[in-house]
């Protein structure tokens, strides 16, 4: 039985945090879910999309996080329950709307779920979304385990309706992507009707227009909601304490760090000396509860990711309590007891607790650790961070790199977000020279493209994936076109939001639920900007190079090169070879060729390997995706491709 559809309350499933969140939302009767794909958040909307039809829901992958939040808010304004998901930096994108949504308030329960990525395992930033809750004055809750992921999501909708405020539920990678046993609850039987009521008084948030004005009055109302939230949080069952009545050291923690803290205390055998106060409601802080626990001990250790959010806010609250509870000694990220950046883990927490309690702890005998380190260096094969075999990006960056070198004016590429961000590395021939947020590559290019007047004669390129194009590149390109910025946008159109798992986007003729929808034509949009648009298949190395050189030399404002080739891992291409590729051992001169192994030393497709015994190149047939690009890399024509009959 699918855990999403299961109607047997009490049934237990092994669920990922994101699965549990999706189930919790279903149990709360969510009607509309929207998001923008981003690790580690994507599975929530993906799961809901799968069963949207059965559950009479509407689920979409929106064009970006801000629009996703607006789509979800509209459902709430019409009285439905809705949720919206994104990765940590998505909150930045949505934050403008969220600021206003905080003031206007919501009607149907609305939950915003940012999934942070401590340690940037799948990100190029270590953004901390919790600060938005404080900054924008919104209630914030953080599940501490998988069961709570379900229960707190379910509760968040009630809380949102009780407060008439959007509620932020924050997860992290190790909660979203790790798994644990989860006992499910009942699914509601609902007949949902949507209606947007707006004919009440201008200042009635439940029946009037949904607006932020008059600001002073509404803002005051929002702050009162936060006070009410604090009162609710004082008695929340999601704030728990385990440990002695008078602990020697009090750990205050939340989210996945709860699990690290429990493991650390257990490993050190300090259950009777160290207490753990785990907070599920982290903004506003339940100050009475905190006072009670801060009174029991002299020393406090904060265990949290990423920034010292609890640490700084609880210290500020403690300052107010100082007269009653006295001075306290605080440890955490601020004093360096725990690292200020990167992901935490049980070892780091053990180390911190051991240091503070004077406990000696060795995870493994020193000799064993030393041997392990040596073995991992000497026996594990070296592996590049690289593009997959047959990846269109390798071919695209091969083309771009060579064109820029031939041009010889030290042109460069402003990068964007996708697998192609890896082109800062040798797998993309180190072609990318900037990498920031979604759409920023083209925005930066738009700026660089104006610097010709200051003597900069370097060609300026930006790259964007198809999904990124819709997300945030369009405004940058409108800017570039309008201001005649001298740039070339290279659109790496691989027919899907490939990096996060082939979620749909507006350029595709299918939506998140699998229903047919009109595809928005990228090429037509670019032409409408007045840009010169060329389209090429990056696997056609020679043809692409020629078009590229003409585009670069042609100059004249914003230009677009669409390199169109489906991702090698996409369901359409996977397992289907366009060419059978082999190395002609007669023609491959190996070591004695003057090529200095350009195929396996520079091009480095993982399926093109150097046969150490024969001292020649070889195709790994298992890995080869049959793109045939390597055949154009060998000048001696030793790599042979033969079209596979279809």
């Amino acid at each position: 039985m699918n855990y999403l559809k299961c109607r047997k309350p009490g049934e237990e499933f092994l669920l990922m945090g994101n699965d549990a969140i999706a189930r919790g939302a279903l149990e709360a009767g969510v009607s509309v879910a929207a998001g923008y794909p981003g690790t580690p958040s994507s599975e929530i909307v993906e799961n809901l999309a799968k069963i949207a039809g059965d559950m009479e829901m509407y689920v979409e992958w929106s064009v970006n996080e801000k629009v996703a939040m607006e789509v979800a808010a509209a459902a709430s304004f019409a009285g439905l329950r809705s949720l919206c998901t994104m990765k940590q930096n998505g909150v930045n994108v949505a934050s403008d709307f969220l600021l206003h949504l905080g003031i206007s308030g919501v009607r149907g329960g609305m939950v915003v779920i940012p999934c942070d990525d401590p340690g940037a395992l799948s990100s190029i930033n270590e953004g901390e979304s919790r600060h938005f809750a404080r900054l924008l004055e919104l209630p914030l809750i953080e599940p501490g385990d998988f069961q709570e992921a379900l229960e707190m999501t379910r509760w968040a909708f009630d809380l949102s309706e009780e407060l008439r405020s959007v509620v932020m539920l924050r997860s992290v990678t190790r909660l979203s992507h790790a798994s644990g046993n989860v006992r499910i609850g009942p699914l509601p039987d609902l007949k949902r009707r949507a209606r947007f009521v707006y004919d009440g008084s201008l200042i009635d948030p439940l029946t009037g227009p949904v607006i932020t004005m008059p600001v002073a009055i509404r803002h005051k109302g929002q702050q009162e909601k936060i006070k009410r939230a604090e009162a609710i949080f004082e008695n929340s069952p999601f704030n728990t304490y385990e440990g002695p009545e008078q602990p020697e050291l009090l750990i205050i923690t939340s989210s996945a760090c709860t699990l690290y803290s429990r493991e650390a205390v257990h490993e050190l055998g300090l259950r009777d000396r160290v207490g753990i106060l785990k907070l599920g409601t982290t903004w506003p802080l339940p100050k009475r509860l905190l006072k009670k626990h801060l009174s029991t001990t002299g020393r406090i250790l904060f265990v949290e990711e990423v920034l010292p959010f609890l640490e700084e806010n609880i210290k500020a609250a403690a300052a107010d309590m100082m007269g009653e509870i006295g001075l306290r000694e605080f440890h955490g990220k601020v004093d360096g007891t725990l690292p200020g950046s990167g992901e935490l883990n049980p070892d780091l927490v053990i180390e911190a607790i051991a240091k503070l309690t004077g406990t000696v702890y060795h995870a493994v005998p020193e000799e064993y650790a030393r041997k392990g380190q040596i073995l991992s260096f000497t026996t594990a094969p070296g592996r590049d961070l690289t593009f997959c075999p047959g990846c269109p990006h390798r071919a695209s960056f091969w083309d771009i790199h060579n064109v820029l070198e031939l041009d010889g004016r030290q042109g460069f590429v402003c990068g964007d977000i996708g697998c192609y961000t890896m082109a800062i590395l040798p797998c993309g021939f180190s072609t990318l020279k900037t990498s920031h947020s979604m759409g920023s590559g083209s925005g930066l290019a738009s700026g660089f493209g104006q610097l010709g007047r200051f003597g900069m004669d370097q060609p300026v390129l930006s790259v964007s994936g198809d999904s990124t194009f819709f997300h945030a590149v369009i405004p940058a390109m409108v800017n570039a076109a309008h201001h005649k910025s001298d740039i070339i946008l290279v659109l790496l159109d691989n027919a899907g939001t490939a990096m996060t798992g082939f979620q749909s986007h507006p350029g595709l003729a299918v939506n998140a639920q699998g229903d047919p929808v009109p595809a928005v034509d990228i090429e037509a949009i670019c032409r409408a900007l007045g840009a010169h648009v060329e389209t090429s298949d990056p696997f056609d190395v020679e043809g692409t190079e020629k078009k590229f050189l003409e585009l670069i030399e042609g100059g004249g404002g914003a230009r677009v090169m669409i390199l169109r080739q489906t991702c090698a891992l996409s369901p359409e291409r996977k397992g289907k070879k366009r060419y059978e590729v082999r190395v002609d051992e007669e023609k491959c001169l190996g070591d004695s060729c003057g090529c200095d192994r350009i195929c396996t030393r520079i091009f480095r497709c993982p399926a093109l390997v150097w046969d150490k015994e024969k001292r020649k190149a070889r195709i790994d047939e298992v890995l080869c995706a049959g793109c045939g690009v390597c055949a154009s890399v060998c000048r001696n024509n030793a790599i042979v491709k033969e079209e596979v009959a279809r």
Partner: protein
Amino acid sequence: MKNYGSVQLKEDVLDRGLCIGCGACISLCPYLRTHRGRTAMLFPCTQESGRCYAFCPKAGVDLDAVSGFIHGRPYGESGVGPHLSVHASRAGDRAPGSVFQSGGTVSALVAFMLERGIIDAAILTGRTGLLPEPRIVTDPGEVASCATSKYAAAPTLSALQEARDAGFRKIGLVGTPCQILASAQIRMHAESEGLPDPIAMTIGLFCTWALDFRKLESILKERTDIAAIDKIDIPPPPAEVMEIYGKGGTLTVPLGEIRTAIPAACAYCTDMTAEFADVSVGMLEGTPGMNTLIVRTSRGDALVRDAAAGGFLKTEPCPAGAIQELEGAAEQKRKRATAKASEDGLMNPAGGERRPHIRLAAETQARILS
């Protein structure tokens, strides 16, 4: 003599701005390519020694050795280099007609060689608009399409390797002094490897300097339709202009402006008359429609005699004054370049890791500078 690889080629030539874009290093490997007059190294190559460095006319050239190999004579004995005879010449009546720079001698000789099978392919320099392009020509009737001076440095020698790969074994080459020097090094390399000499005849073109194509293009493109240029000429002094003939009439550009497009490498070039060719051809100053023809080798001598006998070439004695003037100008160029290379530390650098641009024995240097 130690040879080097493309890492050193990049350091010594490309990074010093001394590449003339002759094309000698192109078509040998996947790393070096030419585009619009510039040589690009796509990726670093780790080979310690390569043909790219050995062929390059701007990297560690041992002029004494090249002179010894081609002519069996010491370097720098006379201004115009070793020669058997000097003539005034022009295309004969049987040579295909065209727009020529002056006398059409080069086109006539090439057409003759193809017709008689002295060569099986000619490596020439054609032009699309302003951009010079290497051509492999096998049809005598096509030769004239490559006539007239390009002024811009051209990667002509990239076609040499392509012609070898295509199976041509008797190749004729028309090139500027730097291209002819590179071809001499290519022939030396073939001999050292025990391979047959791929080049059956070289015709050198007089040259005082070439122009960087991209710079020339940027000077001209605002003023004329560069796609429609028929011929470029620099009339003799005191005009001090470059004349560009095209569909829309004649454009005149001050030579001072044009000179800003001269590549740095030309200042170190010791050769005005393509000394290492079989025959060398240039304008005959003061006599429009006539060439100066220097015959240097016995096979060059046979070519000139046969072409004249076959009606492809008309020769007459070259006025003594013109020879003297050419000698003086060529000697001045060699002296200037030798002195400059020494001053800039590019000639036989003393010790250390620095590799030379030119190598010359001390006595040769002294002879040139005296």
